């Protein structure tokens, strides 16, 4: 499938595209290495995070109770949507003051990061190469670190509210007595169940987003490879498949951002409920 003798094989192409630009300068060898940091993920997530808060802040800065402009109305629709969801799930108005803005940030931020998937897969890496940056992945949410980092943040928020609402004693009591009941024999079972629940929630929360975006990115790369064959079939296939997948992906990036936001609210809402 290689287009020319100097071009990489399709396997090399994919691997190259899936390699992060990290602090070591080459691909990470071990599965877990806390001394490494992915520069590309950090760059794009911070850039888009700043874009998120800047866009929201632009709307907030000029927000009036009078007739809103189109931009303000659009942001207000978002705020209203998140606010309604938060009201339905979290019944404490005090907690909503923090959790609702957090959910809004998460939604817009993840939406922006996911939307990077819609850029042609080779554009930013090629530009990077011109400046001597050989590895680059532009979809921050397709990095497990980013997705798990955010779901870990949600876990911390959950723990914070568990302790805040129920008190340390209340929460520890709940850890050992729910869901099966208060009996010394059931304490370890309950505790193990609770731990599994927390881990499962957090991992599935992050993995869901990561998996969707990673798979989406991979499909875009495969479609790009199809176009890379430089044949009529490849070109037509690339155009058709690329269009279909990109249009479908508009749904996915929005849906994943929405799901992540909703689960954030649901988990924090659960932290408010005493068993």
């Amino acid at each position, binding site marked *: 499938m290689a287009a020319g003798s100097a071009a990489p094989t399709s396997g090399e192409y994919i691997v190259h595209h899936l390699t992060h630009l990290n602090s070591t300068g080459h691909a990470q060898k071990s599965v877990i290495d806390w001394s490494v940091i992915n520069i590309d993920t950090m760059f794009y997530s911070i850039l888009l995070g700043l874009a998120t808060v800047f866009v929201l802040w632009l709307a907030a800065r000029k927000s009036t*109770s009078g007739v809103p402009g189109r931009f303000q109305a659009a942001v207000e629709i978002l705020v209203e949507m998140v606010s309604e969801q938060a009201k339905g799930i979290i019944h404490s108005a005090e907690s909503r*003051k923090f959790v609702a803005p957090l959910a809004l940030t998460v939604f817009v931020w993840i939406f922006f990061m996911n939307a990077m998937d819609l850029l042609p897969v080779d554009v930013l890496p090629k530009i990077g190469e011109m400046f001597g940056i050989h590895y680059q992945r532009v979809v921050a949410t397709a990095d497990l*670190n980013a997705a798990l980092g955010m779901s*870990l943040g949600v876990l911390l928020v959950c723990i914070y509210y568990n302790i805040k609402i129920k008190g340390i004693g209340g929460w520890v009591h709940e850890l050992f007595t729910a869901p099966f009941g208060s009996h010394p024999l059931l304490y370890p079972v309950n505790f193990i169940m609770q731990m599994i629940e927390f881990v499962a929630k957090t991992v599935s929360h992050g993995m869901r987003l990561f998996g969707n975006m990673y798979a989406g990115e991979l499909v875009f790369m495969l479609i790009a490879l199809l176009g890379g064959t430089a044949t009529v079939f490849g070109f037509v296939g690339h155009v058709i498949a690329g269009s279909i997948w990109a249009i479908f992906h508009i749904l996915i990036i929005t849906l994943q951002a929405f799901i992540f936001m909703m689960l954030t609210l649901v988990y924090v809402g659960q932290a408010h409920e005493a068993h």
Partner: protein
Amino acid sequence: MNLNATLFAQLVVFFILAWFTMQFVWPPIVKALDERAKKIADGLAAAERGKQDLELATKRSTEALREGKEKAAELIANAEKRGAQLIEEAKANAKAEADRIVAGAKAEIEQEAVRAKEQLREQVAALVVTGAEQILRREINAQAHSDILATIKQDL
């Protein structure tokens, strides 16, 4: 899909962004939304009040119209009554005047008749006297019988 320190960096960024939104984005927008909702509610209430006022005003104007009509009808009725009264009065006056004139005329006629009788009586007396004179010239002295003649004149 390797795990590394990016995870924790992302965690920190996550909270910083959330904090920023909580501090600078969420409150003004929610405040604007709440204020607008209140404005709209106030506007709707004002519209409702306006509608009620209008209804009240309509009722009052209908009432006023009805009252005016009643008053006008009363005035017309009064005027008609007064008119009839005036006609009656005028009629009565005219009748009285006519009676007066007729009475005057009658009195005058009577006077006239009395005067005519008086004249007639004088003439008849003169005629009788003349006749009697002519008759009696041969037989009696007129002076001698003037008393009798005067008495007769009175009785006529």
